[in-house]
Protein backbone atom coordinates (compact mmCIF):
# COMPACT_ATOMS: atom_id res chain seq x y z
CA UNK A 1 0.00 0.00 0.00
CA UNK A 2 2.83 2.32 0.92
CA UNK A 3 4.57 1.43 -2.31
CA UNK A 4 1.39 2.18 -4.25
CA UNK A 5 1.16 5.56 -2.50
CA UNK A 6 4.81 6.22 -3.26
CA UNK A 7 4.33 5.23 -6.90
CA UNK A 8 1.37 7.57 -7.22
CA UNK A 9 3.24 10.47 -5.63
CA UNK A 10 6.23 9.76 -7.87
CA UNK A 11 4.02 9.94 -10.96
CA UNK A 12 2.60 13.23 -9.71
CA UNK A 13 6.08 14.59 -9.17
CA UNK A 14 7.14 13.45 -12.61
CA UNK A 15 4.13 15.13 -14.25
CA UNK A 16 4.76 18.32 -12.29
CA UNK A 17 8.39 18.30 -13.34
CA UNK A 18 7.45 17.81 -16.98
CA UNK A 19 4.92 20.67 -16.79
CA UNK A 20 7.58 22.91 -15.30
CA UNK A 21 9.97 22.00 -18.10
CA UNK A 22 7.30 22.82 -20.68
CA UNK A 23 6.63 26.14 -18.96
CA UNK A 24 10.33 26.97 -18.96
CA UNK A 25 10.59 26.07 -22.62
CA UNK A 26 7.85 28.53 -23.55
CA UNK A 27 9.78 31.55 -22.31
CA UNK A 28 10.88 33.76 -25.20
CA UNK A 29 14.50 33.80 -26.21
CA UNK A 30 16.46 36.61 -24.62
CA UNK A 31 17.81 39.18 -27.06
CA UNK A 32 21.53 39.78 -27.23
CA UNK A 33 23.00 43.01 -25.94
CA UNK A 34 23.59 44.56 -29.37
CA UNK A 35 20.07 43.83 -30.58
CA UNK A 36 18.66 45.32 -27.40
CA UNK A 37 20.80 48.41 -27.88
CA UNK A 38 19.65 48.77 -31.50
CA UNK A 39 16.03 48.34 -30.40
CA UNK A 40 16.38 51.05 -27.79
CA UNK A 41 17.91 53.48 -30.30
CA UNK A 42 15.25 52.62 -32.84
CA UNK A 43 12.46 53.15 -30.32
CA UNK A 44 13.94 56.52 -29.38
CA UNK A 45 14.17 57.44 -33.05
CA UNK A 46 10.51 56.45 -33.60
CA UNK A 47 9.45 58.83 -30.84
CA UNK A 48 11.61 61.62 -32.25
CA UNK A 49 10.15 61.01 -35.72
CA UNK A 50 6.57 61.10 -34.49
CA UNK A 51 7.35 64.34 -32.64
CA UNK A 52 8.71 65.87 -35.84
CA UNK A 53 12.36 65.84 -34.69
CA UNK A 54 13.60 64.29 -37.91
CA UNK A 55 17.29 65.14 -37.55
CA UNK A 56 17.48 63.46 -34.18
CA UNK A 57 15.47 60.50 -35.50
CA UNK A 58 17.85 60.16 -38.44
CA UNK A 59 20.91 60.08 -36.18
CA UNK A 60 19.43 57.43 -33.91
CA UNK A 61 18.29 55.31 -36.85
CA UNK A 62 21.78 55.50 -38.37
CA UNK A 63 23.32 54.30 -35.10
CA UNK A 64 20.75 51.53 -34.76
CA UNK A 65 21.43 50.53 -38.37
CA UNK A 66 25.17 50.25 -37.76
CA UNK A 67 24.59 48.04 -34.73
CA UNK A 68 22.11 45.81 -36.58
CA UNK A 69 24.48 45.53 -39.54
CA UNK A 70 27.28 44.47 -37.21
CA UNK A 71 25.24 41.45 -36.12
CA UNK A 72 23.59 40.88 -39.52
CA UNK A 73 20.09 41.16 -38.14
CA UNK A 74 18.26 41.20 -41.46
CA UNK A 75 14.76 41.89 -40.12
CA UNK A 76 15.96 44.84 -38.06
CA UNK A 77 18.08 46.24 -40.89
CA UNK A 78 15.07 46.22 -43.23
CA UNK A 79 12.84 48.00 -40.73
CA UNK A 80 15.46 50.57 -39.78
CA UNK A 81 16.27 51.34 -43.44
CA UNK A 82 12.55 51.84 -44.10
CA UNK A 83 12.22 54.19 -41.12
CA UNK A 84 15.44 55.97 -42.03
CA UNK A 85 14.10 56.58 -45.52
CA UNK A 86 11.04 58.21 -43.94
CA UNK A 87 13.31 60.48 -41.86
CA UNK A 88 15.44 61.46 -44.89
CA UNK A 89 12.29 62.18 -46.89
CA UNK A 90 10.99 64.49 -44.17
CA UNK A 91 14.38 66.19 -44.08
CA UNK A 92 13.95 66.92 -47.82
CA UNK A 93 16.74 64.51 -48.80
CA UNK A 94 14.90 62.31 -51.32
CA UNK A 95 18.08 60.82 -52.79
CA UNK A 96 19.16 59.56 -49.39
CA UNK A 97 15.68 58.17 -48.81
CA UNK A 98 15.81 56.23 -52.08
CA UNK A 99 19.35 55.02 -51.30
CA UNK A 100 18.18 53.47 -48.04
CA UNK A 101 15.30 51.70 -49.76
CA UNK A 102 17.38 50.62 -52.76
CA UNK A 103 19.86 48.98 -50.39
CA UNK A 104 17.13 46.48 -49.49
CA UNK A 105 16.72 45.40 -53.10
CA UNK A 106 20.37 45.23 -54.12
CA UNK A 107 23.26 42.87 -53.43
CA UNK A 108 24.42 41.63 -51.02
CA UNK A 109 20.83 40.84 -50.16
CA UNK A 110 20.13 39.45 -46.74
CA UNK A 111 16.99 37.38 -46.06
CA UNK A 112 14.80 40.42 -45.44
CA UNK A 113 11.16 39.70 -44.48
CA UNK A 114 8.88 39.98 -47.55
CA UNK A 115 6.39 42.14 -45.63
CA UNK A 116 9.07 44.75 -44.95
CA UNK A 117 10.23 44.60 -48.56
CA UNK A 118 6.62 45.16 -49.64
CA UNK A 119 6.47 48.20 -47.34
CA UNK A 120 9.75 49.51 -48.78
CA UNK A 121 8.42 49.06 -52.32
CA UNK A 122 5.22 50.89 -51.38
CA UNK A 123 7.27 53.74 -49.96
CA UNK A 124 9.36 53.99 -53.12
CA UNK A 125 6.19 54.05 -55.15
CA UNK A 126 4.78 56.81 -52.96
CA UNK A 127 7.90 58.92 -53.44
CA UNK A 128 7.79 58.42 -57.22
CA UNK A 129 4.10 59.32 -57.19
CA UNK A 130 4.87 62.52 -55.30
CA UNK A 131 7.59 63.23 -57.87
CA UNK A 132 4.99 62.65 -60.65
CA UNK A 133 6.99 59.72 -62.05
CA UNK A 134 3.92 57.62 -62.55
CA UNK A 135 5.38 54.71 -64.50
CA UNK A 136 8.06 54.16 -61.85
CA UNK A 137 5.41 54.42 -59.16
CA UNK A 138 3.38 51.72 -60.89
CA UNK A 139 6.36 49.40 -61.28
CA UNK A 140 7.14 49.66 -57.56
CA UNK A 141 3.51 49.02 -56.66
CA UNK A 142 3.68 45.83 -58.71
CA UNK A 143 6.94 44.87 -57.03
CA UNK A 144 5.39 45.51 -53.63
CA UNK A 145 2.35 43.41 -54.52
CA UNK A 146 4.71 40.61 -55.53
CA UNK A 147 6.24 40.57 -52.06
CA UNK A 148 2.93 41.14 -50.31
CA UNK A 149 0.65 38.63 -52.05
CA UNK A 150 -2.40 40.49 -50.68
CA UNK A 151 -1.74 39.35 -47.15
CA UNK A 152 0.89 41.69 -45.71
CA UNK A 153 0.16 44.75 -43.54
CA UNK A 154 0.79 47.15 -46.44
CA UNK A 155 -1.73 45.50 -48.78
CA UNK A 156 -4.15 48.36 -48.09
CA UNK A 157 -1.46 50.99 -48.72
CA UNK A 158 -0.61 49.40 -52.06
CA UNK A 159 -4.28 49.60 -53.06
CA UNK A 160 -4.34 53.22 -51.95
CA UNK A 161 -1.36 53.95 -54.18
CA UNK A 162 -3.10 52.25 -57.08
CA UNK A 163 -6.17 54.40 -56.38
CA UNK A 164 -4.05 57.55 -56.52
CA UNK A 165 -2.52 56.47 -59.80
CA UNK A 166 -5.95 55.76 -61.30
CA UNK A 167 -7.23 59.10 -59.98
CA UNK A 168 -4.40 60.93 -61.72
CA UNK A 169 -5.25 59.11 -64.97
CA UNK A 170 -8.88 60.21 -64.46
CA UNK A 171 -10.02 56.58 -64.22
CA UNK A 172 -12.40 57.52 -61.45
CA UNK A 173 -14.48 54.35 -61.20
CA UNK A 174 -11.35 52.24 -60.95
CA UNK A 175 -9.83 54.70 -58.48
CA UNK A 176 -12.90 54.58 -56.26
CA UNK A 177 -12.86 50.80 -56.35
CA UNK A 178 -9.23 50.75 -55.24
CA UNK A 179 -9.81 53.38 -52.55
CA UNK A 180 -12.80 51.52 -51.11
CA UNK A 181 -10.84 48.26 -51.35
CA UNK A 182 -8.02 49.93 -49.41
CA UNK A 183 -10.44 51.11 -46.72
CA UNK A 184 -11.74 47.55 -46.41
CA UNK A 185 -8.23 46.06 -46.30
CA UNK A 186 -6.85 48.44 -43.69
CA UNK A 187 -7.31 47.46 -40.09
CA UNK A 188 -9.33 50.01 -38.18
CA UNK A 189 -7.36 49.50 -34.99
CA UNK A 190 -3.78 49.23 -36.25
CA UNK A 191 -3.69 51.40 -39.39
CA UNK A 192 -5.91 54.32 -38.55
CA UNK A 193 -3.82 56.98 -40.25
CA UNK A 194 -3.84 55.07 -43.52
CA UNK A 195 -7.54 54.32 -43.11
CA UNK A 196 -8.26 58.04 -42.80
CA UNK A 197 -6.18 58.56 -45.95
CA UNK A 198 -8.30 55.96 -47.75
CA UNK A 199 -11.55 57.65 -46.67
CA UNK A 200 -10.22 61.05 -47.70
CA UNK A 201 -9.18 59.79 -51.11
CA UNK A 202 -12.49 58.01 -51.53
CA UNK A 203 -14.20 61.32 -50.70
CA UNK A 204 -12.13 63.20 -53.25
CA UNK A 205 -12.91 60.69 -55.97
CA UNK A 206 -16.60 60.69 -55.05
CA UNK A 207 -16.59 64.48 -55.24
CA UNK A 208 -14.97 64.33 -58.65
CA UNK A 209 -17.76 61.94 -59.65
CA UNK A 210 -20.31 64.41 -58.21
CA UNK A 211 -21.45 61.87 -55.64
CA UNK A 212 -21.57 64.49 -52.91
CA UNK A 213 -23.43 62.44 -50.30
CA UNK A 214 -20.75 59.77 -50.36
CA UNK A 215 -18.02 62.41 -50.47
CA UNK A 216 -19.36 64.14 -47.35
CA UNK A 217 -19.67 60.82 -45.55
CA UNK A 218 -16.11 59.81 -46.48
CA UNK A 219 -14.61 63.16 -45.46
CA UNK A 220 -16.49 63.02 -42.18
CA UNK A 221 -15.10 59.54 -41.50
CA UNK A 222 -11.57 60.73 -42.32
CA UNK A 223 -12.07 63.80 -40.13
CA UNK A 224 -13.28 61.71 -37.19
CA UNK A 225 -10.21 59.46 -37.37
CA UNK A 226 -7.77 62.33 -37.80
CA UNK A 227 -9.29 64.12 -34.82
CA UNK A 228 -8.93 60.93 -32.81
CA UNK A 229 -5.29 60.64 -33.87
CA UNK A 230 -4.72 64.34 -33.24
CA UNK A 231 -3.04 65.28 -36.54
CA UNK A 232 -3.75 68.99 -37.09
CA UNK A 233 -2.52 69.06 -40.70
CA UNK A 234 -4.89 66.32 -41.69
CA UNK A 235 -7.81 67.71 -39.70
CA UNK A 236 -7.30 70.93 -41.63
CA UNK A 237 -7.21 69.03 -44.90
CA UNK A 238 -10.43 67.17 -44.06
CA UNK A 239 -12.18 70.43 -43.17
CA UNK A 240 -11.02 72.03 -46.40
CA UNK A 241 -12.33 69.06 -48.39
CA UNK A 242 -15.63 69.14 -46.48
CA UNK A 243 -15.90 72.87 -47.18
CA UNK A 244 -15.25 72.24 -50.85
CA UNK A 245 -17.92 69.55 -51.15
CA UNK A 246 -20.51 71.69 -49.30
CA UNK A 247 -19.60 74.54 -51.61
CA UNK A 248 -20.31 72.28 -54.58
CA UNK A 249 -23.69 71.31 -53.15
CA UNK A 250 -24.62 74.97 -52.71
CA UNK A 251 -24.54 74.88 -48.91
CA UNK A 252 -22.33 77.92 -48.73
CA UNK A 253 -22.94 78.69 -45.07
CA UNK A 254 -21.91 75.17 -44.04
CA UNK A 255 -18.93 75.41 -46.38
CA UNK A 256 -17.91 78.69 -44.82
CA UNK A 257 -18.24 77.15 -41.38
CA UNK A 258 -15.88 74.33 -42.40
CA UNK A 259 -13.41 76.81 -43.86
CA UNK A 260 -13.57 78.92 -40.70
CA UNK A 261 -12.71 75.81 -38.67
CA UNK A 262 -9.87 75.03 -41.06
CA UNK A 263 -8.64 78.59 -40.62
CA UNK A 264 -8.61 78.24 -36.84
CA UNK A 265 -6.69 74.96 -37.10
CA UNK A 266 -4.19 76.47 -39.57
CA UNK A 267 -3.70 79.46 -37.30
CA UNK A 268 -3.22 77.22 -34.27
CA UNK A 269 -0.66 75.21 -36.24
CA UNK A 270 1.25 78.41 -36.92
CA UNK A 271 1.05 77.74 -40.65
CA UNK A 272 1.04 81.06 -42.49
CA UNK A 273 0.73 79.35 -45.85
CA UNK A 274 -2.21 77.32 -44.55
CA UNK A 275 -3.93 80.45 -43.22
CA UNK A 276 -3.43 82.31 -46.48
CA UNK A 277 -4.77 79.38 -48.47
CA UNK A 278 -7.94 79.13 -46.36
CA UNK A 279 -8.45 82.92 -46.39
CA UNK A 280 -8.23 82.96 -50.17
CA UNK A 281 -10.85 80.22 -50.45
CA UNK A 282 -13.12 81.98 -47.95
CA UNK A 283 -12.73 85.29 -49.77
CA UNK A 284 -13.75 83.63 -53.02
CA UNK A 285 -16.79 82.10 -51.37
CA UNK A 286 -17.90 85.33 -49.68
CA UNK A 287 -17.92 87.11 -53.03
CA UNK A 288 -20.83 84.92 -54.09
CA UNK A 289 -24.05 86.96 -53.66
CA UNK A 290 -26.18 84.27 -51.99
CA UNK A 291 -23.68 83.47 -49.24
CA UNK A 292 -24.73 84.02 -45.68
CA UNK A 293 -21.96 83.78 -43.14
CA UNK A 294 -22.79 82.20 -39.78
CA UNK A 295 -22.57 85.53 -37.95
CA UNK A 296 -24.16 87.80 -40.51
CA UNK A 297 -27.81 88.04 -39.48
Amino acid sequence: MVLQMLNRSNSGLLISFCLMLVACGSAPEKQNFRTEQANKLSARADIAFLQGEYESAKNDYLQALRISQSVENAAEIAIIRFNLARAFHELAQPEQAHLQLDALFSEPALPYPPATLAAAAALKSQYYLEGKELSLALSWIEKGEGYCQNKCPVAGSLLLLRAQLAQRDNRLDEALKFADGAAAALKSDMQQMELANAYRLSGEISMAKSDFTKAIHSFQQAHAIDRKLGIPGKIRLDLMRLGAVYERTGEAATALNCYARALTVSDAMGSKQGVDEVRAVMKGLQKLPEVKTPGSQ
Partner: protein
Amino acid sequence: MKLFSAHDSRLAVLERKVGLFAFAGLGALLLVFVIVAIEQGMFASTTKLRFQTNDVGMIHEGMEVRLRGFKVGKLLGISLKEDGAVEVQFFVDNKYLLHIRHGAKVRLIEQGLLGDGVLEIVPGPTDQPNLVVNELLPFERQFGMGELAHELVERLKPILDNVRVTTTSLNEPDGLINHVKKVAVKFEKAGEDVSSLMQQTQGVIAEENLKLGKALDKSSEAVDKVGVAVDKVGVAVDKAGVALDKASTLIDSFHDVALDVGKVTASSAESIPPLLRDGRVAAEDARNIISSAQASWPIKNMMEAGETKILPMDSYGVTNAQPK
Protein backbone atom coordinates in the same frame (compact mmCIF):
# COMPACT_ATOMS: atom_id res chain seq x y z
CA MET B 1 1.26 -12.98 -5.12
CA LYS B 2 1.61 -11.08 -1.87
CA LEU B 3 2.51 -7.52 -1.38
CA PHE B 4 6.06 -6.79 -0.30
CA SER B 5 4.80 -5.49 3.04
CA ALA B 6 3.46 -8.91 3.91
CA HIS B 7 7.03 -10.23 3.89
CA ASP B 8 8.59 -7.48 5.96
CA SER B 9 6.93 -6.42 9.23
CA ARG B 10 9.06 -3.25 9.41
CA LEU B 11 6.97 -1.72 6.63
CA ALA B 12 3.86 -1.88 8.81
CA VAL B 13 5.63 0.36 11.34
CA LEU B 14 6.78 2.63 8.53
CA GLU B 15 3.20 3.02 7.33
CA ARG B 16 2.10 4.14 10.79
CA LYS B 17 4.99 6.60 10.98
CA VAL B 18 4.20 8.09 7.58
CA GLY B 19 0.56 8.42 8.53
CA LEU B 20 1.51 10.12 11.80
CA PHE B 21 3.86 12.44 9.98
CA ALA B 22 1.15 13.38 7.48
CA PHE B 23 -1.36 14.07 10.27
CA ALA B 24 1.18 16.18 12.14
CA GLY B 25 1.86 18.16 8.97
CA LEU B 26 -1.83 18.75 8.37
CA GLY B 27 -2.28 19.75 12.00
CA ALA B 28 0.57 22.25 11.76
CA LEU B 29 -0.92 23.69 8.56
CA LEU B 30 -4.29 24.06 10.25
CA LEU B 31 -2.65 25.76 13.21
CA VAL B 32 -0.94 28.21 10.88
CA PHE B 33 -4.30 28.98 9.24
CA VAL B 34 -5.89 29.58 12.61
CA ILE B 35 -3.04 31.84 13.73
CA VAL B 36 -3.22 33.82 10.50
CA ALA B 37 -6.99 34.11 10.83
CA ILE B 38 -6.63 35.42 14.37
CA GLU B 39 -3.94 37.83 13.25
CA GLN B 40 -6.23 39.05 10.49
CA GLY B 41 -8.96 39.63 13.03
CA MET B 42 -11.35 37.07 11.60
CA PHE B 43 -12.50 35.99 15.04
CA ALA B 44 -12.34 39.42 16.63
CA SER B 45 -15.46 41.18 17.74
CA THR B 46 -15.94 44.21 15.51
CA THR B 47 -18.30 47.11 14.96
CA LYS B 48 -19.38 48.24 11.55
CA LEU B 49 -19.18 51.97 10.80
CA ARG B 50 -19.46 53.99 7.63
CA PHE B 51 -18.66 57.28 5.98
CA GLN B 52 -19.69 59.02 2.80
CA THR B 53 -17.64 60.74 0.13
CA ASN B 54 -18.25 62.03 -3.35
CA ASP B 55 -15.04 60.62 -4.77
CA VAL B 56 -13.85 57.07 -4.33
CA GLY B 57 -10.33 57.83 -5.59
CA MET B 58 -7.59 56.15 -3.52
CA ILE B 59 -10.17 54.19 -1.52
CA HIS B 60 -10.38 50.49 -2.09
CA GLU B 61 -11.78 47.40 -0.39
CA GLY B 62 -9.52 45.85 2.19
CA MET B 63 -7.54 48.99 2.93
CA GLU B 64 -6.38 49.46 6.49
CA VAL B 65 -8.13 51.62 9.03
CA ARG B 66 -5.78 53.06 11.62
CA LEU B 67 -6.02 54.86 14.88
CA ARG B 68 -2.91 56.74 15.94
CA GLY B 69 -0.89 54.50 13.66
CA PHE B 70 -2.37 51.23 14.98
CA LYS B 71 -4.29 49.03 12.64
CA VAL B 72 -7.75 48.89 14.19
CA GLY B 73 -9.93 47.78 11.31
CA LYS B 74 -10.43 47.26 7.65
CA LEU B 75 -12.53 48.66 4.84
CA LEU B 76 -15.38 46.27 4.05
CA GLY B 77 -17.09 47.61 1.00
CA ILE B 78 -17.90 50.60 -1.19
CA SER B 79 -21.30 51.28 -2.68
CA LEU B 80 -22.85 54.00 -4.78
CA LYS B 81 -26.00 55.47 -3.25
CA GLU B 82 -29.02 56.61 -5.23
CA ASP B 83 -28.17 60.26 -4.59
CA GLY B 84 -24.76 59.75 -6.19
CA ALA B 85 -22.81 59.72 -2.93
CA VAL B 86 -20.33 56.96 -2.31
CA GLU B 87 -20.86 55.10 0.94
CA VAL B 88 -17.96 53.25 2.43
CA GLN B 89 -18.39 50.60 5.14
CA PHE B 90 -15.57 49.62 7.42
CA PHE B 91 -15.19 47.78 10.70
CA VAL B 92 -13.28 48.61 13.81
CA ASP B 93 -12.12 46.11 16.39
CA ASN B 94 -14.28 46.55 19.48
CA LYS B 95 -11.30 46.70 21.80
CA TYR B 96 -10.25 49.99 20.15
CA LEU B 97 -13.77 51.38 19.99
CA LEU B 98 -13.42 52.88 23.45
CA HIS B 99 -10.95 55.39 22.04
CA ILE B 100 -13.22 56.46 19.24
CA ARG B 101 -16.08 58.62 20.41
CA HIS B 102 -18.90 60.52 18.84
CA GLY B 103 -17.41 63.41 16.84
CA ALA B 104 -14.61 61.26 15.46
CA LYS B 105 -13.87 61.59 11.78
CA VAL B 106 -12.20 59.50 9.10
CA ARG B 107 -9.33 60.98 7.17
CA LEU B 108 -7.75 59.57 4.01
CA ILE B 109 -4.02 60.02 4.27
CA GLU B 110 -1.81 59.74 1.22
CA GLN B 111 1.33 57.90 2.19
CA GLY B 112 4.28 59.20 0.31
CA LEU B 113 4.60 60.05 -3.33
CA LEU B 114 3.47 56.72 -4.68
CA GLY B 115 -0.02 57.59 -3.61
CA ASP B 116 -0.99 54.57 -1.50
CA GLY B 117 -3.34 55.66 1.23
CA VAL B 118 -4.69 54.62 4.60
CA LEU B 119 -7.80 55.61 6.47
CA GLU B 120 -6.91 57.25 9.75
CA ILE B 121 -9.55 57.72 12.41
CA VAL B 122 -9.30 61.04 14.17
CA PRO B 123 -10.87 60.22 17.58
CA GLY B 124 -13.54 62.52 18.95
CA PRO B 125 -13.39 64.23 22.36
CA THR B 126 -13.24 61.74 25.25
CA ASP B 127 -16.28 63.21 26.97
CA GLN B 128 -18.51 62.32 24.04
CA PRO B 129 -20.75 59.21 23.96
CA ASN B 130 -19.58 55.98 22.33
CA LEU B 131 -20.21 55.27 18.71
CA VAL B 132 -23.17 53.11 17.74
CA VAL B 133 -23.22 50.36 15.13
CA ASN B 134 -23.39 51.66 11.56
CA GLU B 135 -22.81 55.25 12.64
CA LEU B 136 -21.97 57.67 9.87
CA LEU B 137 -18.67 59.43 10.46
CA PRO B 138 -17.53 62.58 8.68
CA PHE B 139 -14.82 62.07 6.08
CA GLU B 140 -12.02 64.27 4.82
CA ARG B 141 -8.96 63.93 2.63
CA GLN B 142 -5.56 65.09 3.65
CA PHE B 143 -3.70 67.09 1.06
CA GLY B 144 -1.45 64.95 -1.10
CA MET B 145 1.99 66.10 -2.19
CA GLY B 146 0.66 67.58 -5.42
CA GLU B 147 -1.92 69.68 -3.62
CA LEU B 148 0.63 70.74 -1.00
CA ALA B 149 3.03 71.97 -3.61
CA HIS B 150 0.28 73.81 -5.47
CA GLU B 151 -0.85 75.40 -2.25
CA LEU B 152 2.70 76.47 -1.54
CA VAL B 153 2.94 78.10 -4.95
CA GLU B 154 -0.43 79.79 -4.48
CA ARG B 155 0.66 81.12 -1.10
CA LEU B 156 3.94 82.39 -2.49
CA LYS B 157 2.33 84.26 -5.40
CA PRO B 158 0.90 87.26 -3.50
CA ILE B 159 4.07 87.54 -1.46
CA LEU B 160 6.19 87.66 -4.58
CA ASP B 161 3.89 90.27 -6.08
CA ASN B 162 4.39 92.29 -2.95
CA VAL B 163 8.17 91.89 -3.32
CA ARG B 164 8.00 93.04 -6.93
CA VAL B 165 6.00 96.16 -6.08
CA THR B 166 8.28 97.00 -3.20
CA THR B 167 11.50 96.51 -5.12
CA THR B 168 10.12 98.56 -8.01
CA SER B 169 9.52 101.38 -5.57
CA LEU B 170 13.03 100.96 -4.23
CA ASN B 171 14.55 101.21 -7.66
CA GLU B 172 12.91 104.53 -8.23
CA PRO B 173 15.55 107.30 -8.08
CA ASP B 174 13.90 108.96 -5.10
CA GLY B 175 13.03 105.81 -3.19
CA LEU B 176 16.23 104.84 -1.42
CA ILE B 177 16.95 105.02 2.30
CA ASN B 178 19.60 103.81 4.65
CA HIS B 179 17.21 101.97 6.89
CA VAL B 180 16.24 99.70 4.10
CA LYS B 181 19.55 97.90 4.39
CA LYS B 182 18.69 96.35 7.75
CA VAL B 183 15.29 95.21 6.58
CA ALA B 184 16.70 93.96 3.29
CA VAL B 185 19.16 91.70 5.07
CA LYS B 186 16.28 90.14 6.97
CA PHE B 187 14.32 89.82 3.75
CA GLU B 188 17.25 88.28 1.93
CA LYS B 189 17.61 85.66 4.64
CA ALA B 190 13.92 84.83 4.40
CA GLY B 191 14.25 84.59 0.64
CA GLU B 192 17.21 82.25 1.01
CA ASP B 193 15.18 80.08 3.34
CA VAL B 194 12.44 79.76 0.75
CA SER B 195 14.97 79.18 -1.98
CA SER B 196 16.71 76.48 0.03
CA LEU B 197 13.41 74.78 0.82
CA MET B 198 12.34 74.84 -2.79
CA GLN B 199 15.68 73.61 -4.07
CA GLN B 200 15.63 70.79 -1.55
CA THR B 201 12.12 69.87 -2.61
CA GLN B 202 12.92 70.13 -6.28
CA GLY B 203 16.06 68.05 -5.82
CA VAL B 204 14.15 65.22 -4.23
CA ILE B 205 11.46 65.36 -6.88
CA ALA B 206 13.96 65.35 -9.71
CA GLU B 207 15.66 62.38 -8.11
CA GLU B 208 12.50 60.41 -7.85
CA ASN B 209 11.10 61.67 -11.14
CA LEU B 210 7.60 61.79 -9.77
CA LYS B 211 4.42 63.77 -10.15
CA LEU B 212 5.37 67.03 -8.50
CA GLY B 213 7.69 68.11 -11.30
CA LYS B 214 5.24 70.50 -12.90
CA ALA B 215 4.05 72.08 -9.73
CA LEU B 216 7.57 72.65 -8.49
CA ASP B 217 8.67 74.12 -11.79
CA LYS B 218 6.25 76.89 -10.95
CA SER B 219 7.75 77.13 -7.49
CA SER B 220 11.19 77.28 -9.01
CA GLU B 221 10.13 80.20 -11.18
CA ALA B 222 8.75 81.84 -8.10
CA VAL B 223 12.03 81.32 -6.26
CA ASP B 224 13.94 82.76 -9.19
CA LYS B 225 11.77 85.83 -8.87
CA VAL B 226 12.68 86.06 -5.21
CA GLY B 227 16.32 85.84 -6.21
CA VAL B 228 15.96 88.64 -8.73
CA ALA B 229 14.08 90.71 -6.23
CA VAL B 230 16.77 90.18 -3.62
CA ASP B 231 19.45 91.16 -6.12
CA LYS B 232 17.57 94.28 -6.92
CA VAL B 233 17.34 95.09 -3.25
CA GLY B 234 21.10 94.71 -3.01
CA VAL B 235 21.66 97.14 -5.86
CA ALA B 236 19.17 99.54 -4.41
CA VAL B 237 20.71 99.40 -0.96
CA ASP B 238 24.15 100.10 -2.34
CA LYS B 239 22.78 103.24 -3.89
CA ALA B 240 21.05 104.26 -0.68
CA GLY B 241 22.03 107.56 0.77
CA VAL B 242 19.21 109.95 1.27
CA ALA B 243 16.26 109.44 3.63
CA LEU B 244 12.94 110.24 2.00
CA ASP B 245 9.31 110.51 3.01
CA LYS B 246 8.49 107.09 1.65
CA ALA B 247 10.88 105.48 4.10
CA SER B 248 8.47 104.30 6.73
CA THR B 249 6.02 102.90 4.17
CA LEU B 250 8.77 100.93 2.50
CA ILE B 251 10.07 99.59 5.78
CA ASP B 252 6.59 98.46 6.79
CA SER B 253 6.10 96.81 3.45
CA PHE B 254 9.39 94.96 3.65
CA HIS B 255 8.65 93.94 7.18
CA ASP B 256 5.35 92.41 6.06
CA VAL B 257 7.05 90.63 3.21
CA ALA B 258 9.73 89.20 5.47
CA LEU B 259 7.10 88.04 7.94
CA ASP B 260 4.98 86.41 5.25
CA VAL B 261 7.91 84.61 3.70
CA GLY B 262 9.05 83.50 7.12
CA LYS B 263 5.59 82.09 7.92
CA VAL B 264 5.41 80.16 4.68
CA THR B 265 8.92 78.83 5.13
CA ALA B 266 8.20 77.66 8.66
CA SER B 267 4.88 75.97 7.89
CA SER B 268 6.18 74.36 4.72
CA ALA B 269 9.30 73.12 6.41
CA GLU B 270 7.10 71.27 8.88
CA SER B 271 4.88 69.54 6.39
CA ILE B 272 6.89 68.87 3.25
CA PRO B 273 10.21 67.28 4.21
CA PRO B 274 8.71 64.35 6.20
CA LEU B 275 6.35 63.59 3.35
CA LEU B 276 9.19 63.73 0.89
CA ARG B 277 11.18 61.37 3.04
CA ASP B 278 8.26 58.92 3.12
CA GLY B 279 7.85 59.22 -0.60
CA ARG B 280 11.52 58.62 -1.26
CA VAL B 281 11.57 55.54 0.93
CA ALA B 282 8.44 54.20 -0.70
CA ALA B 283 9.75 54.89 -4.18
CA GLU B 284 13.08 53.24 -3.38
CA ASP B 285 11.27 50.21 -1.97
CA ALA B 286 9.11 49.93 -5.05
CA ARG B 287 12.11 50.32 -7.32
CA ASN B 288 14.03 47.64 -5.45
CA ILE B 289 11.07 45.27 -5.59
CA ILE B 290 10.56 45.86 -9.31
CA SER B 291 14.23 45.51 -10.19
CA SER B 292 14.53 42.37 -8.06
CA ALA B 293 11.48 40.89 -9.73
CA GLN B 294 12.80 41.79 -13.16
CA ALA B 295 16.11 40.13 -12.43
CA SER B 296 14.63 36.96 -11.00
CA TRP B 297 13.64 33.78 -12.76
CA PRO B 298 11.16 33.24 -14.40
CA ILE B 299 10.13 36.87 -14.83
CA LYS B 300 13.51 37.69 -16.34
CA ASN B 301 12.87 35.23 -19.16
CA MET B 302 9.31 36.40 -19.66
CA MET B 303 10.17 40.10 -19.96
CA GLU B 304 9.62 40.94 -23.57
CA ALA B 305 12.43 43.02 -25.00
CA GLY B 306 11.31 45.87 -27.22
CA GLU B 307 11.25 45.17 -30.91
CA THR B 308 12.13 47.47 -33.75
CA LYS B 309 8.90 48.46 -35.42
CA ILE B 310 8.11 49.83 -38.81
CA LEU B 311 6.68 53.35 -38.76
CA PRO B 312 2.99 53.49 -39.70
CA MET B 313 2.45 53.95 -43.42
CA ASP B 314 1.12 57.31 -44.51
CA SER B 315 0.85 57.01 -48.25
CA TYR B 316 -1.47 59.91 -48.89
CA GLY B 317 -1.67 63.42 -47.65
CA VAL B 318 1.56 64.06 -45.74
CA THR B 319 2.81 66.74 -48.07
CA ASN B 320 -0.58 68.34 -48.42
CA ALA B 321 -1.40 68.01 -44.75
CA GLN B 322 1.61 69.85 -43.41
CA PRO B 323 1.78 73.26 -45.05
CA LYS B 324 4.98 74.86 -43.83
